[in-house]
């Protein structure tokens, strides 16, 4: 079964209507210097196994961004 993404405006739709926009970022570590914060923001990801919050763009629908919660083990 294909993954369904629950768009808050359009309801549950096939993942193929969406573009993945990455995991919701955590706030930068205040102890890090500006360079390290930048590198972390641009490249590094938590890549959690389990519950995640992520951004999706409903390209073939309402054409708006939404934040969804999902389990990456499912």
């Amino acid at each position: 079964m294909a993954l369904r993404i629950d768009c808050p405006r359009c309801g549950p739709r096939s993942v193929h209507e969406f573009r993945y926009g990455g995991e919701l970022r955590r706030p930068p570590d205040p102890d890090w210097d500006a360079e390290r914060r930048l590198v972390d923001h641009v490249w590094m990801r938590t890549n959690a196994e389990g519950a995640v919050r992520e951004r999706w763009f409903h390209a073939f629908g309402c054409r708006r961004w939404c934040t969804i919660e999902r389990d990456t083990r499912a």
Partner: protein
Amino acid sequence: MNEHVERQIALPAATPRASYDVVIVGGGGHGLATAYYLASRHGITDVCVLERGWIGVGNSGRNTTVIRANYGIPEAVRFYQRSLELYEGLEAELGRDVMHRRKGLVWVAHSEVGLRAQMARAAQNRAYGTDTEFVGPDRIAELCPDLDLAGGGAYPIVGGTYHPRASTARHDRVVWGYAEAAARLGVDVCPGVEVTGLVRSGERVVGVETAAGPIAAGTVVCAVGARASAFAAQAGVRLPVVTHPLQAFVTDHYAQRIEPVVVSSDLMIYLSQTPRGEILVGAEIDPQPGYATRSGFDFLAGCAHRAITLLPCLRDLRILRQWGGACDMTPDYSPIIGATGADGLLITTGWGTWGFKGIPAGASGLAELIGTGRVPELIAPFGLDRFARDRTCADRGSAGTH
């Protein structure tokens, strides 16, 4: 299946001791091969490989077994060419038949843009040391007569490249071959031992925690495949890895007919016929990240349709099984090998959809780094620090599909 049972009996499952020079976490191809090269090339035999399941349970047993070097950047061409050459000598080296077969690879183009990309690939590959030729439709028809040059009307084959040294090998046999050879040299291969944490002394990683107690280590190597991000985070290391599912399927067994591996970037598909006669078809990674290794009907329907577009003769074949793997994808589609920034912890990850073909070169490079303390030239471009230094090895066009 019987083959696997015999092999598991042939390899005694070791119980880990309390301390080793090198503890490798992850009993897949990269972890086991790193242990083998440490023992065989560098005389370091005080090594254990800890695997929470059975060896080869992850992507080492789920990949589509293509070995090739026709990449798009010089660093990758040299690296995978070395790997391809090591694979060619692997049966002699390990004393095991790993069913290595040279098949050749035909990468077809369906458009002017695709054709130019393949033309550039052939020129660049030759310049950096692998054998790739630019070929027209006539030659492609000779290499694989079953291809529909009209591509069902929508995907005409206008040319492509031929990579004659591309091969396949039986992935379980590669894993078991490395495991046996490493064990013969004194490495402890320990399936069924789950690492639950890292032992740190100050900032330095000095061992791992397991259910049976801690194991001290001079060096810990993280070779855990899809779950590298969480593992590295225990040492405060952040990785640019996102884990995506990749699905594949095979048909029933049929008489040998399709000689080369066939690849189409536009159709996001690649296929080959295994020595057992199955037609093995793989696709792009799934768009969403995930750790599940289930495989679904919409993948099967779409992928089968695209396969038939290229090879109409597959139309009536029966599908035997489908499966999924969890791929540790990097943003530049190149692996991450070497230092992590945490003392005592090395990593080999970001093997995405190109891990099987990289086993010999990645593992021998990492073993050389551990054995000599110097980063070998072949793996130097693939350090984790390349992201902070803005020296990424971007090669999506070569690695994305397989």
